[in-house]
């Protein structure tokens, strides 16, 4: 063992240590940002150490430079340009590409470098192709669904889909078992195509509300794919890091499921929530009887006299890019002597923690963001609740109606407050595709309109009443 080897091992060990510390640090608010930097540093270190050991020749350097320039630049541009509201899709896209990278490595080794491959290497190739392909197509399908490019086809909600997916899984298995005997032929392509289609077949039936869980799970898969690629090329560092991310991703998936009161099994195999719901599916306005709608003026008057105001932001707020307008209104109300807080449901937005990120972007003080368990006992002494583009997370049926598909999901108990205003474009259904009993309660009034426009109107109204000038 040369000095260079020893040096290389030391760098690898340091990189693993820093990666672990980075991952750990990411789970506390104070250290999160530096931890992210630490993990990035660890990654750079690992690459440096590997290049030192590999000593690539000039031609290899050329191809490394090409890949680095293209991938790095696209990553840079995407990370800068993408709006905060599209974060779940972005993570899905990045994740899919990670899976694709592992897949391509395994594919290249299988096709061009598998002459002397032993059994372990061949099995690793199988796993890497299988998991990598599922990660890629699954992530892209998830991204397509979140962007609205892909719908939920009817057949995916019937038992047909289980048949299709089982057939695909069997085809993939056949390919997997045949591959070691014939690593460059039909078996490889069968495995590749069947796994890819399986990724789509499993993701497509899942409803938008459950998508974060799927992305988190696919994130875990991409770790597994990386670990498998580590076996293919014989890199211990890659095995450790891949296994670490795979396991951590599983835990995070579990945490998210708990927050949504869904089991992983029902997310994966249960079909879209509400896809077969008996009442008012997907965006029709039928079924509501006692709806009171009101203007922004009336809402502003109620706000002016309120001592305690709670905002419930949902994805509608994010879509309307209204977080800054919301912050503006909150400042006015505070100047008027009201106590303002924000109720954050664990799955508000499209991903746990997504709403916190959006509100932080608008400089909302961290202490005013209250989690569900903290805010729920406070609703009975709240004068005005303003629901902004949230729907299913404030549906009282989740507590009261055992027949509701939402039954059992923890919700924000806004129906306990004295007065509720729901700012919404229309009476269309939320992700769950069901009617919201909150809208029909006597203390609820609907303010129809785009969240941003309504919030700006409210600010104008309040200012014309002299609010905010006195201070």
């Amino acid at each position, binding site marked *: 063992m040369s000095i260079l080897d020893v040096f290389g091992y030391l760098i690898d060990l340091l990189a693993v240590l820093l990666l*672990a510390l980075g*991952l750990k640090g*990411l*789970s506390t*608010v104070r250290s999160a*940002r530096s*931890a*992210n930097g630490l993990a990035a540093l660890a*990654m750079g270190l690992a*690459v440096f150490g*590997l*290049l030192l050991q*590999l000593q690539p020749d000039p031609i*290899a350097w050329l*191809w*490394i430079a090409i*890949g*680095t320039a293209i*991938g*790095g630049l696209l990553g840079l541009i*995407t*990370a800068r340009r993408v709006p905060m509201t599209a*974060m779940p899709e*972005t*993570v899905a896209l*990045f*994740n899919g*590409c*990670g899976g694709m*990278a*592992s*897949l*391509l*490595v395994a594919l290249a080794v299988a096709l*061009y470098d598998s002459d002397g491959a032993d059994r372990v290497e061949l099995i690793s190739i199988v796993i890497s192709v299988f998991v990598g392909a599922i990660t890629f197509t699954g992530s892209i399908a998830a991204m397509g669904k979140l962007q609205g490019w892909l719908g939920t086809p009817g057949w995916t909600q019937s038992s047909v889909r289980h048949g299709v997916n089982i057939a695909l899984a069997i085809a993939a298995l056949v390919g997997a078992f045949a591959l070691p005997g014939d690593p460059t032929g039909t078996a490889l392509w069968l495995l590749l195509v069947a796994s890819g289609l399986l990724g789509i077949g499993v993701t497509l039936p899942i409803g938008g509300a459950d998508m974060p869980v799927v*992305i988190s799970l696919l994130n875990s898969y991409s770790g597994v794919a*990386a*670990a498998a*690629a*580590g076996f293919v*090329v014989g*890199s211990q560092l*890659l095995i450790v*890091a891949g*296994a*670490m*991310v*795979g*396991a951590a*991703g599983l*835990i995070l998936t579990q945490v998210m499921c708990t927050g949504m009161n869904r089991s992983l099994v029902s997310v994966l195999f249960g079909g879209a929530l509400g896809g077969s719901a008996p009442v008012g599916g997907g965006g029709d306005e039928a079924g509501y009887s006692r709806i009171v709608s009101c203007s922004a003026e009336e809402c502003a008057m109620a706000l002016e006299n309120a001592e305690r105001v709670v905002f419930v932001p949902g994805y509608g707020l994010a879509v309307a890019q209204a977080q800054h307008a919301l912050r503006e209104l909150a400042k006015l109300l505070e100047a008027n002597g009201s106590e303002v807080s924000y109720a954050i449901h*664990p799955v508000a937005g499209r991903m*746990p*923690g*997504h709403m916190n990120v959006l509100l*932080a*972007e608008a400089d*909302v*003080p*961290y202490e005013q963001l209250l989690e569900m368990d903290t805010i729920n006992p406070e609703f009975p002494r709240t004068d005005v609740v303003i629901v902004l583009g949230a729907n299913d997370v404030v549906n009282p049926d989740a507590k009261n109606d055992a027949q509701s598909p939402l039954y059992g999901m923890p919700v924000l108990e806004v129906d306990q407050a004295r007065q509720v205003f729901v700012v919404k474009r229309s009476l269309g259904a939320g992700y769950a595709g069901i009617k919201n009993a909150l809208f029909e309660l006597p203390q609820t009034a609907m303010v129809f309109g785009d969240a941003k426009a309504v919030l700006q109107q409210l600010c104008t109204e309040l200012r014309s009443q002299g609010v905010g000038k006195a201070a």
Partner: protein
Amino acid sequence: MTTLSQALWVLLLGSLLGLELIGKVPPTLHTPLMSGANAISGITVLASLTLIANAQDNPALLILGSVSLGFALFNVVGGFLVTDRMLAMFSRKKRGGGR
């Protein structure tokens, strides 16, 4: 370079470490954590680099390696930067928003 049993031990210990590292995470951090973990899973750059360096001028291996390196780096660079962008919002607010 590694024997199978060594590699399997590494796999086992790495998995256990991953299970332990993430215990209680405040919901605020779920999205950044997922994004950060996703960036780390781009560590498969190491596999792409190894593939290219050991290609011995086989053009197919060089090209496939380079493409996979591009995909992996897209994941790594984009992942870390976007995570940093999210987390920067939290820290900026902490400094400026003391009321």
